[in-house]
């Protein structure tokens, strides 16, 4: 069997009367670029939050490297090597770009309670921060306050911050959300680079189909809280059910059916 890094078994999550995620099982193999897609309200973000630990599932379990992590809090998962990005840009707005990245770099180190040394004298973290800023093309912006970055820059900073802690598994929540289309290829390149560089495993929720089709090695399609289909990009593109979920009966049209 393939090397499974993350596994979800029978995940279910309800909010009040609403079933957001209904009996979802999912395996993520090491080294894959696995996208989760589906129309709005399909339960992607909820599933994502279950994987990252922000929500506890109503039932079901999550395994990471074979260990049950269902009830581990968010910060403990980070220590196991799971990094996540947010759909809404979620950076420390009033800190500098460098400080944002360095916070991420030092997070898993042992120096967080060294209260009497200047943070910038810890060369290893600073170097790591510059490294990830370099990788994401933000090196020149290092000294700016993060909130003056353009939107695309903030999304890149998000990526840099996840990278800085060298996670094995990256969970990206709509990395291109709200980005202008001309910036998207840039971001794809960065994501590609990240994967090649560190043999990382990436799980991504994304709406931009060109991004998904371009870089995914595996795709899971969700619909109404359940997994509708899974496969590589070619299989998914060819899948009629998936098409109808996304576009309704559009592809039936040439056959003359009408409402």
């Amino acid at each position, binding site marked *: 069997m393939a090397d499974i890094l993350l596994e979800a078994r029978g995940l279910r999550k309800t909010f*009040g*009367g*609403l079933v957001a995620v209904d009996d979802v099982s999912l395996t993520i193999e090491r080294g894959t670029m696995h996208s989760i897609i589906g*129309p*709005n*309200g*399909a*339960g992607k973000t909820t599933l994502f939050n279950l994987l990252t630990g922000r929500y506890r599932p109503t039932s079901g379990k999550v395994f990471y490297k074979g260990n049950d992590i269902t009830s581990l809090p968010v910060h403990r998962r980070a220590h196991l090597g799971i990094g996540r990005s947010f759909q809404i840009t979620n950076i420390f707005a009033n800190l500098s770009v460098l400080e944002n990245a360095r916070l991420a770099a030092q997070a898993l180190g042992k120096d967080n309670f060294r209260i009497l040394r200047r943070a910038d004298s810890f060369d290893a973290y600073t170097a790591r921060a510059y490294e990830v800023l370099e990788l994401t093309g933000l090196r020149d912006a290092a000294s700016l306050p993060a*909130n003056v970055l353009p*939107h695309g820059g903030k999304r890149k900073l998000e990526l840099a911050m996840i990278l800085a802690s060298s996670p094995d598994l990256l969970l990206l929540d*709509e990395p291109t*959300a*709200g980005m*202008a*289309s001309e910036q998207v290829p840039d971001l794809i390149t960065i994501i590609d680079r990240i994967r090649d560089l560190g043999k990382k495993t990436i799980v991504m929720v994304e*709406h*931009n*189909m*060109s991004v998904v*089709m371009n870089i995914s090695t595996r795709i899971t399609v969700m619909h*109404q*809280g359940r997994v509708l289909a899974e496969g590589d*990009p070619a299989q998914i*593109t060819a899948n009629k059910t*998936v*098409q*109808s979920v*996304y*576009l*309704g*009966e*559009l592809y039936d*049209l*040439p056959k003359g059916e009408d*409402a």
Partner: protein
Amino acid sequence: MSSILEVQDIHTFIGQFHILEGVTVSVPQGGITVLLGRNGAGKTTTLRSIMGLRPPSSGSILFDGKPIHGKTTYAIAQLGIGYVPEHRAIFRELTVRENLQLAERKRGDLARKTEFIFDLFPDLQRLIDLPGGNLSGGQQQMLAMARALVPDNRLLLIDEPSEGLAPVIIDQLIVAIQRLAGTVSVLLVEQNFRVARKLAQDYVIIEEGHSPMRGTMHDLVSDPALIQRYLGVA
């Protein structure tokens, strides 16, 4: 045909993000116009801008020929615009009846409309004294629609009514909205193309804060290349 709603080149910021960079939409009297486009394109923001929840920084919004941009949300609603937001925004602690009562703009609105509403959404009758939070997703959507019908609204802004609903329920909703056609005008946001196609006569495509394409639904349906370009899977 005259338009009940004319949105002209509005620009809207959220914080420092320029979300709408010139959106133009019109809804003909008694017609249904659908906003199509990918997630994050600015469809919901367009509705919220019209409603005054995210006031546009420039551009104009005319309702019945009179400008409504710059007015407060409640004043806009009182002109006869009903809003059915994404995720329904049902008051979970209030009963179905109270949810409907809240929407009254004049005393007696609800009494006058009860029959009409129950006829449209028969389920609600049975649920009338249940807290909104106990309703299923589909029932909540019905309630959200019903709430917008309690006062005599002439325009409904409906955001993603089919989201997260089972096909059977969606069909019920389609029937309900179709029955409203003629008496009220609708500006709809819908990702489900099947639903959009069944309901709307006109479409506007929203992409990255712009509205690059508009036309009749009939023309859109006969142009797969266009669909592919703006809405396609790959």
